[in-house]
């Protein structure tokens, strides 16, 4: 027992969306934050100037629209990743979150932010190899991708699990590889950047649940 009881199931063919206690809480959090990000106006950052008064930095409208769109995509993808019961589908959701994260900061015209997001992008590109490789290996070894089925099979999948975890770590930019990500957070515009962090944290917890289940 990991997730504390099932409430319901939404089938899309072979891919199933399951509402357990754990996934429902994650889903509700992700959706709440997506709505909040849509409603919130970005903060104005105060920058010290070398000469004269401090300058109040506003986010211009054209930049705001693009970043808000990316933040919403990121939120919806996170909400979907909470529910899905298919390993390959989850990997795709992870990739979508990874690329939307880069999109959120790509519109900021600051050199160090762009540099950090470039490094993060490289990591997430590398991370697709272990992620999809691990799901392919699992499919070959067990003949199925569904988490509900893998739960009953009881095969030794240690190496695949390690690969999958590594892929997740690169895609969400988790702890040992956080340095690039922390730089990204210096960009102005709070709610959108908040979304990067929220999605990665929720996805880490969800991945741990999946790895314990299969």
């Amino acid at each position, binding site marked *: 027992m990991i997730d504390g009881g099932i409430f319901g199931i939404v089938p899309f063919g072979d891919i199933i969306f399951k509402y357990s*206690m754990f996934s429902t809480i994650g889903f509700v959090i992700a959706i709440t934050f997506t709505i909040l990000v849509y409603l919130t106006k970005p903060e104005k950052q*105060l920058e*010290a100037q070398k000469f004269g*008064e*401090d300058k109040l930095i506003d986010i211009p409208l054209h930049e705001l629209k693009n970043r808000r769109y990316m933040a919403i995509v990121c939120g919806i993808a996170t909400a979907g990743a909470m529910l899905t019961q298919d390993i390959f589908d989850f990997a795709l959701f992870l990739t979508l979150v990874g690329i939307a994260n880069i999109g959120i900061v790509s519109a900021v015209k600051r050199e160090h932010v762009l540099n950090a997001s470039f490094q993060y992008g490289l990591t997430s590109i590398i991370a697709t190899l272990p992620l999809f490789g691990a799901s392919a290996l699992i499919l070959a070894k067990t003949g199925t991708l569904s988490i509900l089925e893998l739960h009953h099979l009881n095969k030794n999948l240690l190496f695949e699990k390690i690969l999958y975890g590594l892929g997740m770590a690169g895609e969400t930019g988790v702890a040992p590889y956080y340095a690039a990500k922390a730089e990204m957070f210096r960009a102005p515009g709070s709610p959108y950047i908040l979304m990067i962090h929220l999605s990665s944290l929720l996805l880490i917890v969800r991945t741990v649940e999946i790895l314990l289940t299969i």
Partner: protein
Amino acid sequence: MDIEKKVGIVCLIIGMLSFILMFITNGLISYLFYILFVPNILYGVGIFIVPKTRRKKLGKIPFRGY
């Protein structure tokens, strides 16, 4: 009416609604309404008992230059 009071009224309404819904519903949903009820009521009640701000320019907080 300034924005703090407006938010306080919204929070009070949410708190009251969840207080009523808490007793109608059962199981996990009622716990959800309970955890919505507590902080909203705390903020909504609190904003009406704090003293009125004595700052000259509202909202200009005292860090660097303001």
